[in-house]
């Protein structure tokens, strides 16, 4: 049940093997890449299973939409390869377990899904967010993070229930069928991962950036341009939903922020490093974070703009030390609307 939409024949026919050839954390020549990909597909051992940084990038690189990363995670679990230590994996799963405390609540559009980030609901405030209904809690946690822990099984177990919770406790009875996902990962879960796993989603996920872009249009007269250079930290989850990338550019344009072109952005973005630390690869995490932040600093950016709360928790302090103002994109838009002081 919930098999991944994957056809090994597509890989056999693929000449470029972009999923491995473009990997930022492992190096291959084309022959080895094809060999390792065949090993993965067939369930044989592969150094990819232990070397994978779980950055999701190969999902984006694959020209065939053949879900190379989901398959890596599948094989890791099948073969008992754990990227993170067993106690940490188990403890994280316990920490994020649904509490079963969800109760029906009437909502009205726009419904904003805050996943399991109750501490961020303060970001959802006027004028950028207009009369929203907010849903949040352990029972609607999207569960996509288990991709980093070789636990597709937990996703399969929890995600259908989460989707059902959202639909039955909030949306259906209120006649709302669109869900605005504040967290990139939630949008990726419902729009990319769920279909890939053949899990049905009865509602339409909307990326928060699409909503924000619309609101900025409506509030155009109130915008005071930021007039600053910004460096954007593209999170791993964006790799699953590259089609949303244009919203980021549009939002920056609308608020008068210049997204500086730098080395580690867009398709060359680097992981924030926190997952690498969970995998006990501290030196790699140090290297990745240093390169990323130095790149931001060298670009002359004033702000380090985040999409993902986890990236922000990981990098904000270090970004500030480099002289960059860490801020979530939503809060930067609020600042452009001069609603209140930007909160880092």
């Amino acid at each position, binding site marked *: 049940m919930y098999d991944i939409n994957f056809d090994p024949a597509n890989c056999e026919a693929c000449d470029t093997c972009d999923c491995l050839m473009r990997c930022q954390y492992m190096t291959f020549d084309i022959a080895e890449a094809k060999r390792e990909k065949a090993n993965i597909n067939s369930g044989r051992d592969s150094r990819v299973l232990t070397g994978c940084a779980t950055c999701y990038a190969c999902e984006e690189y694959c020209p065939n939409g053949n879900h190379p990363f989901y398959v890596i995670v599948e094989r890791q679990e099948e073969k008992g390869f754990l990227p993170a230590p067993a106690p940490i994996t188990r403890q994280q799963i316990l920490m994020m377990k649904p509490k079963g405390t969800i109760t029906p609540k009437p909502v009205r559009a726009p419904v904003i899904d805050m996943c399991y980030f109750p501490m961020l609901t303060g970001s959802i405030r006027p004028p950028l967010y207009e009369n929203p209904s907010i849903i949040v809690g352990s029972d609607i946690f999207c569960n996509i993070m288990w991709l980093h822990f070789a636990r597709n099984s937990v996703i399969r177990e929890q995600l259908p229930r989460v989707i059902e919770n959202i639909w039955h406790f909030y949306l259906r009875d209120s006649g709302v069928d669109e869900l605005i996902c504040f967290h990139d990962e939630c949008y990726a879960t419902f729009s990319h991962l769920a279909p890939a796993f053949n899990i049905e989603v009865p509602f339409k996920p909307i990326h928060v950036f699409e909503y924000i872009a619309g609101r900025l249009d409506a509030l155009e007269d109130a915008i005071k341009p930021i007039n600053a250079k910004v460096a954007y930290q593209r999170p791993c989850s964006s790799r699953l939903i590259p089609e949303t990338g244009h919203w980021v550019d549009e939002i920056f344009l609308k608020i008068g922020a210049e997204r500086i072109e730098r080395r580690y952005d867009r398709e060359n973005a680097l992981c924030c490093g926190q997952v690498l630390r969970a995998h006990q690869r501290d030196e790699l995490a140090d290297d990745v974070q240093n390169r990323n932040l130095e790149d931001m600093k060298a670009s002359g950016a004033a702000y380090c703009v985040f999409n993902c709360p986890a990236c922000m928790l*990981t990098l904000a302090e270090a970004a500030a030390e480099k002289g960059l103002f860490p801020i979530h994109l939503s809060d930067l838009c609020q600042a452009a609307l001069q609603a209140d002081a930007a909160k880092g």
Partner: protein
Amino acid sequence: MDNISEVLAEIVGPEYVSDFPEEKYIYSMDPGTMPACEPDIVVMPGSTEEVQKIVQAANARRVPLVPLGAGLVLSGLSRALKGGIVLDMKRMNRIVEINEVSRYALVEAGTSQGMLQAHLKKHFPNLKHSVPDAPPAATIAGNVSIHGSGHMSHAAGFHSDMLNGLEVVLPTGEVVRIGSCAVSPYWFARAPLPDLAGLFLGWAGTTGVITKLAIKLYPNYPLNDVGVFVCEDASLMPDILYRITGTQVAEDVTAWMTPKPDWAAGFLHCNVNYGAQTKNELIWKRNLIRAAVENYIDDKTGGFLPLPGMMKQRFLEAPNRQLAQFADVRKGGGFEYVGAIMPAELFPEAYELGLDIAQKLAVSYSMGCRIIGVNHSMMFYYAYAFNRADPDDVARAQGALEETNKRVLALGGVPWKAEAPAQREILHKMDPNMVEMMRRVRSVLDPNGIMNPGNWEGI
């Protein structure tokens, strides 16, 4: 006792003497489970001279005298078991001297941990002392005299190991300096003289009143970090602790195991605190510590939690304020713990013992340990929360504490800052010649038996 109040009022001033019911009530107990024992009088001296006069007056009248710091021992060691006078030392809280180059602080006995910490932060930011996890109101002298431990104990031992010298008032009224300060204006060490400090450490105030003490200070690094190592198998812990402590780069190594929140149950966490002058040094130390337990990381049986900076703050706090919150677990304002000093190699047995007692007696628990020295021993604690408004709950916690003390002793550990009943258990097990020697020492120092009677006796 007729005129003792007046005598004391003459010495310290009437505003610092009380035989009112209110003071007698509050000073009759500490926040632990031990039952109330009311003193007859509470007195608060402001100087060594006043302490001396008080002691002389008490000695002349054979009135029991109980020195008290902040009263946070939790095992009731500052209760007036036989009535008498409680000597609240906290007015004597001057920081007399900070010797920066020789790294020591000379303080009066009532100086609190918090005030010394604040003083150093402001005036000597390159220095710190080893802060226990007791609340900041706890006194330096109280903690040293019970062989306390704290945030430098992996690097430097028990807090009593960090003691350079004492000024004490003997039960017979003499003021004695112990350590280099007896010979020199500097309070830099107890060596190379015959070490009399031990006569006042671990004795629960039964041998005299400490009025001043000098303690070692340590470099206060500008950069600090913590790694929290997690595993699920207690049998691995002795080796994990051995390896981590073997690097000798950390300042504090503590483990914690708790059933709440739910995600923590069954996991053993080991906090490794370290500091450095530069970022590179900090990373180097992190890598050294990590390399020490590489084998566990490689076989996936253990690893360091991926904690972002702001989530580490509570583990970097000294003292750890959250520990006090354990007292509210039963909504009852109480917790008490058995701190068992034992070899680190007994970790798995110590842990199983705690789980067993908690299950059998159905008590809320929290367990953990602090490594003393380079794995030379550990202070393994079994904390039990209770609701002080519910006598049954108090009794349950008391039962758990008693059972824990017994089993700790049977295991080969020694209960730390043991309450009077546990002291008797220890004495029963002790080498009889040591028991006799303790008795002899006390009879010499305190012929009238005035100092905190009821402690370390009764067998």
